[in-house]
């Protein structure tokens, strides 16, 4: 879609993107280029248009103006209920393996994914029989299955309890080590962004513009108490004008 002849082909690129729903301006002049296997977190005040940005990236929503280019297959992970409740764990994951024609190969990859998310023994369980954390692990296996290139995550861990959320961050890091993907994570969890992302994009209030981009040059996995995570958290809080407590000290 873009006319540029840039040397790097970005899996995801938007430029000069604006979007309005009726008279409500949601996004204004947003430009982001995401490199292959980069992990970008998008943070902003609630209702600022984070999820809308993700829907533009997935192609679900057509922007009012600006360019969107996307290479490869993008898949979305939802907050909850993204799995089909009428399908078993195996059936849900197999949805991501539909492009593989060979039955044996598909079975082999399914076993590998089950191994990866440690849900052997739960193949024939239905989502409502699993815990919230297990369900999100199945979602992860489904989006990682086959040859997906881009993962779009819409607050994937926000409906989980705190400890499960911490564990899921570790799992996600491990899974991405095994199967690298380009990731865009929309979250309101600042720690989560600081722990996981290579780059954090902080959005303003609606209409959302990019307020700040913060790059984190530190390998994963990162511990919650690593100084880089703590520092980044503090910086994001400052960007969101939530640093009053820090200043009071």
């Amino acid at each position, binding site marked *: 879609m873009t006319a540029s002849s840039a040397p790097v082909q970005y899996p995801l690129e938007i430029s000069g993107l604006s979007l309005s729903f009726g008279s409500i301006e949601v996004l204004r002049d947003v430009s982001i280029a995401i490199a292959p296997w980069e992990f970008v977190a998008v943070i902003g005040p609630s209702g600022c248009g984070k999820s809308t940005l993700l829907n533009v990236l*997935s192609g679900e929503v057509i922007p009012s103006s600006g360019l969107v280019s996307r290479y490869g297959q993008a898949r*979305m992970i939802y907050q909850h209920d993204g799995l089909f409740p*009428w399908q078993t764990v195996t059936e849900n994951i197999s*949805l*991501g393996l539909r492009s593989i024609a060979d039955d044996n190969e598909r079975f082999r990859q399914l076993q590998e994914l089950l191994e990866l998310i440690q849900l052997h023994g739960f193949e024939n369980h239905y989502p409502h029989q699993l815990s919230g954390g297990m369900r999100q692990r199945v979602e992860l296996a489904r989006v990682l299955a086959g040859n997906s290139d881009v993962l779009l995550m819409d607050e994937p861990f926000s409906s989980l309890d705190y400890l499960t959320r911490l564990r899921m961050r570790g799992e996600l890091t491990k899974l991405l080590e095994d199967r690298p993907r380009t990731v865009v994570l929309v979250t309101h969890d600042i720690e989560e962004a600081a722990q996981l992302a290579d780059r954090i994009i902080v959005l303003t209030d609606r209409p959302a513009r990019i307020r700040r981009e913060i790059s984190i040059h530190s390998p994963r996995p990162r511990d919650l108490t690593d100084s880089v995570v703590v520092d980044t958290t503090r910086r994001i809080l400052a960007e969101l004008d939530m640093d009053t407590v820090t200043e009071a000290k």
Partner: protein
Amino acid sequence: MKNEASWSVVLPVILAAVLIAAWALLSTTGLFPASAFPAPMAVLQAFHGELTSGRLSNDIVTSLFRVCCGFLIAVGCGIPIGVWMGQITAVRLALLPLTNFFRNLSPLAWMPFAILWLGVGDAASIFLIFLSVFFPVVLATLAAVAGIPAVHFRVARSYGLRGFEKLTQVTLPAIMPQVITTLRVAAGVAWLVDVAAEMIAGRDGLGFAVMDSRNGLRTDILVVEMIVIGIIGVLIDRVLVQLTTISSVRWGYDR
């Protein structure tokens, strides 16, 4: 008798025994004439007579045949039309008022036309049963389709499910729990309508048998038929409730 399961058998049996005892006691007092208030023993004898003559089993088979035909045809037409209305706005807008009208028109009001058009027999009853099942099934299916969370269709699209695959792997399984609940209710209604239809537009079947017993003042046989009609109604629901045990629909009932 520690658990609820055994109480759920024992208590109703005790209650039934008490009621039958009271019935027997009342009929021995002679307060009511035997023709208006048959004694349990008379009913038991009538039951034996009806069984050995083969009339009862013939009527049961006839009525069940009609209910099955009417019900299955109505469900077979109602679910596809409901899905169609649920998915295409123009179809829904066009058909919904008409569907609501017919859903609220008692199928029994069709009786004169059913007899005029189809005569007395199987076809008239099946037609009335069809009407009693078809419209509720259409409306329930339509509501269920309209209520499918949008996220399911977004997931379907991103994994390349379209057309027929989307229908069989997303739309239909998503509405199944609600549709099954509707089928249970509709089957109960169908059974009621069948008996009523046979009372007027029948030459056989349990409804006709009830009318026949009334005309012959055989209240003992009448009671036999009432008991059989009630038991079959319960059994029909017991059969349909099995649908809710299918593992791929449990999600609709377990949470």
